[in-house]
C-alpha cells in the first residue's frame, strides 16, 4: 500500500492536533481570569440600577423532582425582582452529576456557579484554576454569610491561599450517630448508651451481641440473619483526619492512633496496627453473624429492614430524627461525644464560582440572598406555599398536608422537596419543617460550635511532585482497601492480605508520599503558627 502525500500530511496534522490538546489540558484552563476586572457595583446599590443578568448554575441534587420547572420559574421571577438575576439552572441527580461534571469543567463549558465537593475532586480542579477566587469579594458581597459560617469552614475550602467555595451552613462537623430500632430495644430491654455517653463504634459492639442473642432467642428462625448492616468505615472505629489518599493524621484531643503524634505527624493509615485491628474486627463480627456476609448485596430490597428485624445503622451527621422514620416502629437516635471538623467533611459540598464567570459579584449576591432570605430559602427547599407546603396549626411548615407532597410514602415521589442537603446554602435560612423539633436550629449550632477545629483545616496537598506515586498507590488501595475486600470481613487471612497490601504500597512509593506530605505539612503548620513535627 502506498500512501499519498495528502494522507501523510493529514496524519501529521491530526496527530499534532491531538498532541497539542493533550498537552493543553494541564496548564491553560484557568488562572488568567484572576486578573479580570472587579468593577461590580457596591452592595448598597438599589435593585433597579443593576442590569439584568442570567447566571448559569450546575448542581447535583439527590433526585430530580417532577415540579422542578414549576418551582424554579417562580424563583426566577422572585430573583428578578430582588436582584435582577435569573438562573439558567442545570440540575442532575448525584451520580449523574459525578459522571458529568469533570468533563463539563475540563471542556471549559461556561458556568457561573457550580456545586462542588471533595468527591468531585474539588482540590485538583481548584489547583488547575477551574474556580474563581473569592477572598477579595467575601467582605463586600457575602457579609452575612461570612458571619454565619464558623471560621474553620472557610479554612477548609481554601486552596493554596485562595477561597474557592461557599460552604452551606449545616452540620459542618462529623458526629457519630447510631440510629436504632427503639421498638426492638424496648421489647428486649436493651440499654442503649445515651447521647454523649459514648465515643466510637467500639462502644456499641456489646449492645449488638446482646441484641442478637435476645432477638434470636425470641425468633429462632432469624438466627441466620445479622443484627445490623456492616460498619466498614475505619473512621467510625478510630477517627483520623485524611490529608491525601493514604496519608492521614491524628485528631488533636482524640489521638486514636497510638504513637502517631497529635495532628502534626503524617502516617500511612494502612500500616497502623489500628487499621489491622479494624479489618479483623469486621471479620469477627461477620463470622459471628453480627454483620452480614457480602454486605454490598445483602437484603437489597430492604425486606428485613422494613420488617424491623435489624437493630439499626451507624452513621454520621444526624441532629435529630423523626421517630416515625420507618413505618411500623419507633426509631431512636443517640450521638457520640466526639465532634470533629475536618477539611474533608466541610468539603463534602459547597457552591463554587467557575473561573469562566463574567458575573462573580452577581453570583455572590445570589448566594448571599440564598443564605439569608427566608422567602427564597423556603421556595428553594420546599417549593411553593399552598402547593408543596402549608403552615399547620402550630405555625410550623408542613409538607405532609400539602396538595402535591401530601400522602407521599416514597421519598422519590415528592412533587418538590429538598430540605436537608448541601446544595442550597444555609439550612436555617428558611423555616424548619414540622417533623423536626423547634430546638433544631439550636442543636445544629451547638454541634458546629462544639466541634474540635484544631485540625489541619485548610491544609491542601500539592500533588504535583508525587503524582505518579499517588496514581500507582490509588490502584493498589482500590484493590485491597475496599468494602468488598479487606473491610468486607470476607477475607480469610487478614494478616496475610494486609502484609501483601503494604508490600505493594511500599513498592509503589508509599513512603515517598508520606515524606513529601510531611514536608508540605511542616511548611504549612509553620506558616500558620502551629507546632511542627520535629
Amino acid at each position, binding site marked *: *500500500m502506498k500512501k499519498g502525500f495528502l494522507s501523510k500530511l493529514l496524519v501529521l496534522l491530526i496527530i499534532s492536533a*491531538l498532541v497539542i490538546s*493533550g498537552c493543553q489540558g494541564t496548564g491553560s484552563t484557568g488562572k488568567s481570569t484572576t486578573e479580570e476586572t472587579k468593577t461590580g457595583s457596591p452592595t448598597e446599590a438599589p435593585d433597579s440600577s443593576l442590569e439584568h443578568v442570567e447566571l448559569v448554575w450546575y448542581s447535583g441534587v439527590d433526585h430530580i423532582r417532577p415540579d422542578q420547572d414549576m418551582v424554579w420559574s417562580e424563583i426566577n421571577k422572585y430573583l428578578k425582582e430582588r436582584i435582577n438575576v435569573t438562573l439558567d439552572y442545570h440540575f442532575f441527580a448525584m451520580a449523574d452529576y459525578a459522571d458529568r461534571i*469533570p468533563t463539563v469543567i475540563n471542556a471549559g463549558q461556561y458556568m457561573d456557579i457550580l456545586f462542588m465537593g471533595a468527591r468531585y*475532586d474539588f482540590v485538583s480542579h481548584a489547583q488547575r484554576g477551574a474556580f474563581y477566587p473569592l477572598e477579595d469579594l467575601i467582605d463586600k458581597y457575602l457579609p452575612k454569610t461570612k458571619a454565619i459560617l464558623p471560621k474553620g469552614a472557610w479554612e477548609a475550602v481554601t486552596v493554596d491561599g485562595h477561597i474557592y467555595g461557599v460552604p452551606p451552613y449545616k452540620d459542618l462537623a462529623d458526629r457519630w450517630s447510631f440510629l436504632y430500632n427503639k421498638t426492638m430495644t424496648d421489647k428486649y430491654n436493651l440499654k442503649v448508651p445515651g447521647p454523649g455517653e459514648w465515643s466510637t463504634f467500639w462502644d456499641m459492639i456489646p449492645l449488638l451481641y446482646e441484641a442478637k442473642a435476645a432477638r434470636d432467642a425470641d425468633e429462632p428462625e432469624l438466627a441466620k440473619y445479622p443484627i445490623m448492616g456492616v460498619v466498614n468505615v475505619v473512621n467510625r472505629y478510630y477517627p483520623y483526619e485524611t490529608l491525601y489518599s493514604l496519608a492521614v493524621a491524628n485528631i488533636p484531643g482524640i489521638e486514636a492512633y497510638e504513637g502517631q503524634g497529635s495532628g502534626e505527624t503524617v502516617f500511612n493509615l494502612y500500616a497502623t496496627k489500628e487499621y489491622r485491628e479494624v479489618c479483623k474486627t469486621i471479620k469477627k463480627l461477620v463470622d459471628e453473624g453480627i454483620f452480614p*456476609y457480602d454486605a454490598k448485596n445483602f437484603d437489597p430490597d430492604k425486606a428485613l429492614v422494613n420488617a424491623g428485624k435489624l437493630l439499626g445503622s451507624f452513621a454520621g451527621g444526624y441532629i435529630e430524627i423523626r421517630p416515625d422514620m420507618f413505618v411500623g416502629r419507633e426509631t431512636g437516635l443517640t450521638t457520640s461525644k466526639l465532634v470533629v471538623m475536618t477539611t474533608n467533611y466541610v468539603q463534602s459540598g459547597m457552591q463554587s464560582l467557575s473561573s469562566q464567570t463574567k458575573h462573580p459579584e452577581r453570583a455572590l449576591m445570589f448566594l448571599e440572598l440564598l443564605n439569608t432570605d427566608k422567602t427564597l430559602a423556603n421556595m428553594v427547599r420546599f417549593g411553593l406555599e399552598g402547593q408543596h407546603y402549608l403552615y399547620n396549626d402550630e405555625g410550623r411548615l408542613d409538607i405532609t398536608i400539602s396538595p402535591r407532597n401530601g400522602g407521599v410514602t416514597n421519598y422519590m415521589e415528592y412533587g418538590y422537596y429538598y430540605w436537608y442537603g448541601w446544595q442550597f446554602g444555609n439550612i436555617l435560612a428558611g423555616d424548619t419543617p414540622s417533623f423536626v423539633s423547634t430546638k433544631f436550629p439550636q442543636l445544629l449550632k451547638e454541634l458546629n460550635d462544639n466541634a474540635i477545629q484544631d485540625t489541619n483545616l485548610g491544609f491542601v496537598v500539592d500533588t504535583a511532585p508525587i503524582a505518579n506515586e499517588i496514581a500507582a498507590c490509588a490502584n493498589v488501595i482500590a*484493590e485491597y482497601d475496599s468494602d468488598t475486600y479487606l473491610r*468486607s470481613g470476607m477475607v480469610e487471612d487478614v494478616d496475610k492480605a494486609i502484609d501483601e497490601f503494604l508490600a505493594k504500597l511500599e513498592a509503589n512509593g508509599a513512603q515517598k508520599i508520606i515524606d513529601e506530605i510531611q514536608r508540605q505539612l511542616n511548611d504549612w503548620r509553620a506558616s500558620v503558627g502551629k507546632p511542627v513535627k520535629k
Partner: protein
Amino acid sequence: MFLAVSLSLLLNELHSKKLAKVLQTIFIMPHFLSMTVVSIVVFAFLSVNNGLLNNILELLGYSRHNWYMERKFWPLFLVLVNAWKHVGYSAVVYLASISSISEEYYEAAIIDGANKLQQAWYITIPHLRTMMTILLILSVGGIFRGDFGLFYTVPQDNGVLYPVTDVIDTYIYRSMRVLNNVGMATAAGLYQSVVGFILVLTTNKIVNKISPEYAMF
C-alpha cells in the same frame, strides 16, 4: 473459535429450515445485548447471597463462594461470558460462508463414499480456513483495545479482581478518575491509537499476503 466452527457445522447439517432459523436467532441473541444487560445477567448467577450458582452449590451440599472476590475464577468467567456473547455470531458468519461452498464438492465426496465427518474435515474446514485466519488477524488488531464494557462492567469494577480483569483501558480510565488529568488521558488515548494503528497496518499487510482481495487498502 473451535466452538464457533463446530456450531456452524452442526447448524449447517440441520434439515428443518424452520428449526435452523429459530436456533440461529437464539444463538445470535446475546450478541445484541448491551454490556449493562450482560452484567446484570452475570450478577444473577454470581451474586453471593442470591445467585443461582451458589444456590445450586448449596443444594449439592457445598459451601457458598464469594465469586466477586475469587480471582482464580475470573479469567474463566470472562472467557465464558465472551463466548456466550459472541460464539453465536461467529457461527452465523461461518455458516454464511459455508453456504457459499458449491454443492458439487459434497456430491463428489458422497460418491467417493465419504461420511459426514470426513466431508466436514476435507471440504468444509479447508474452505473456512481463509476466513478463520482473517477473523483471527482482525481480532489481533483489536487486542490492544480491550473490550472496556466486558472488563469494567461485568466484574463491577471490583478492586480485588484488578489483577485478573484490568486491561489498559480500565487502568487509564481509573487513573484519570483519580488524577483527573485530561491532558494525560488524551495523551494515553493517542499512544493507544498509535499502537493500534501499527497493529492494524501490520495485520493488513499480512492479510494482503494471504489473500489480497480481503485487504482493506
